[in-house]
């Protein structure tokens, strides 16, 4: 039964998803949207598991002093500080003791980690309790800021937005910009004329690259522009469409196998 029930559910919901594609009626859409809502709900619960996984992996690194273990502290502090900032907001003109509140919470986190990794658990647990008392004391007495769990005030908290806009976004943009250099190094490897096919690839690449180069001072001869367009619109597109047709059939076949219970790899049964 433990195995049969999931297969039955997969069959029922999979078959429904196939049929709903052909049924535009509102009732069909309602069930479809209802199921998609459930995917979101499951996703939110799974996110809690994900955060727990990140926490345990990071604490494990600290406990065993694995290579670059100190960065795990940065990961955990970054994770929890954004959670705290995202749920709090300024009420008055000043932040009051807000910074002490945040620091005491981060200290609490550090002490809790030390509690789980250290042999002297009593000391760290006591310090954790002290930090918690300080944080709760400020939270209950300081009226210059508030806590919002059900609404989105915290998302406009300037500290939250500053961390996101001036720390996270530039770091992510930096990672993305590395792509330009990786494309250059990959292109160098790909375009080496080792055999006839690689030479053809090199020639085609040069023609297409020249076509899209904005710094050509003398313009491109028309026949080269036409050749470039032909390369993109005929052989390239034909190959892409062939792959897309294959992918489409593959998707239908795999979906059928999953719905009919032939393919069970996703349940750990190959």
């Amino acid at each position, binding site marked *: 039964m433990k195995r049969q029930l999931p297969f039955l559910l997969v069959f029922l919901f999979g078959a429904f998803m196939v049929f709903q594609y052909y049924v535009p009626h*509102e009732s069909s859409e309602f069930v479809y949207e209802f199921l998609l809502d459930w995917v979101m709900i499951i996703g939110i619960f799974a996110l809690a598991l994900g955060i727990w996984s990140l926490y345990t*992996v990071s604490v494990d690194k600290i406990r065993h002093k694995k290579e670059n273990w100190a960065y795990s502290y940065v990961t955990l502090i970054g994770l929890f500080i954004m959670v705290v900032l995202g749920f709090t907001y300024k009420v008055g003109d000043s932040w009051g003791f807000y910074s002490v509140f945040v620091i005491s919470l981060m200290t609490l986190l550090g002490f809790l980690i030390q509690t789980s990794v250290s042999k002297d658990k009593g000391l760290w647990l006591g310090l954790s309790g002290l930090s918690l008392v300080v944080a709760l004391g400020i939270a209950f007495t300081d009226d210059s800021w508030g806590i919002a769990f059900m*609404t989105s005030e915290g998302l406009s908290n300037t500290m939250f937005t500053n961390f996101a806009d001036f720390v996270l976004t530039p770091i992510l943009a930096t990672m993305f910009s590395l792509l330009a250099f990786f*494309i250059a190094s*990959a292109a160098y*490897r790909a375009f080496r004329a080792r055999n006839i096919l690689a030479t053809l690839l090199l020639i085609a690449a040069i023609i297409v690259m020249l076509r899209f180069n904005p710094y050509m001072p003398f313009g491109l001869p028309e026949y080269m522009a036409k050749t470039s367009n032909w390369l993109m619109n005929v052989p390239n597109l034909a190959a892409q469409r062939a792959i897309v047709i294959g992918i489409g059939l593959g998707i239908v076949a795999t979906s059928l196998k999953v719905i009919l219970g*032939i393919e069970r790899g996703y349940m750990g049964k190959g």
Partner: protein
Amino acid sequence: MKVKLLIMVVMMLALSSFCFAQDNATEAGTEDTDTTAVVESIILPAPPGNLTGIDKPNDHGHAAILSWDLSPDDGAGENSVLKYEIYKWVPQLMLDINLVRDSLSVIQRILRNTTSGITEGTQADSMKIVFEKYSRDELFDIRNTLIAHVKQENTGLAEASNSYPENGAWLFVDKKPSGTKSFVHIGSKDFKSAGFVPDFANLYYRVDAVTIDGAKSSSKVLGPIQTSGQWYNTYRTPVVFSVLFFTLLTIYFVREARKGADLYVRPLGGIEAVDDAIGRATEMGRPILYVLGLGSAADIATIASFTILGRVAKKVAEYQTELLVPTYDPIVMTVAQEVVKSAYLDAGRPDAYKEDTVHFVTQSQFAYVAAVNGIMLRELPATNVYMGKFFAESLILAETGALAGSIQISGTDEIAQIPFFIVACDYTLIGEELYAASAYLGKEPVLLGSLKAQDYAKAAIILLAVIGVVLAQFEFGAAFVNLFEVAN
């Protein structure tokens, strides 16, 4: 509290009605007074003729298709028509409900803290001032009461629309440029939305031809027409036949395979290399990194990747090598944990399974890339396997893996990323090969049967494409080509 709420609703209705009294009068007057009284010197355009309308076919309802003949002054005659304005007649009940909907909208914005866009001095602003005096709990209660009120009132719309032309008004729907002869009015199905169009209620439309001077001439009123949803989308009939054909083909080959038919499947270099790569990792004493990509657990590419992960994990467990699976999606993480755990169990080494083998990293694309690249450069895995959905991060991952000296096997169905993987990886599964990998790894007849069905379906598609190309050269060939048209 309930009494307070009811008073609140009544008060808001009164306030809204007062605010809108002027507008309704103006709007309602458009039908009777017409613009000639205001601008006597302006010549009216000829009205659009033959206004017809039908329920939009193959949809969920709440939508109608209108079509009309162009005004004689559109592109000819006086050539003065600038645009067409489409109006819908709505009963007074609908107008009353709309006022409550407006209140509801303001309350929603207050609850979501998104009132910054409300312009000062408007009706919404005055509503905001009133509602902001209430606590959040009270606002939640008011919101629920208003939703119930709107839902209840909507049930009377069909009956109220029978009163045409009494006790109602014309509402502006949309405008279209001159030369337009049709309009699809797609209403909202959400009864809380101002654009809600009820099904099975009498609808009346008119189209006005408008000149640059603002002079309007109205068409004859169209109606009553009704909208409704359909239970079958006939536009998708070609897809039904294709899927049925493919399903029958798959079932046939699966049965053949079960009977013991010898089904040949061409070798896939990338999959054959998996065993060697695991052996290499064992010899080198280094881990294997398995990346499931950025897809969700609902993506077929990720589902195929789970199967391959299961096979890889089983071999890894047998060889007692370390496996690292950093994940992007928490649902994918939980499924992958189950897959790897089962694989270790199948290999007879449940004790070797570690909870952190499959772990969550982040749901931010480039933060995930940074973390995985960090793992590659710290742990120096002997083999990197990338299977699933990949986007801009594909080359950053694969190039870093190449720099770290790992053997790399990849597979994705993202067309744009395939060239990157081909360049940077040692073996690449292109498109459908990713889905075929599970069948190839298992060599199970039932799975191989589906591969055969895919091959025959591809042959059928090639055949039809060739026939289509030939027939498209002739006029009668269009009928054949149109057989495969799928509209939304």
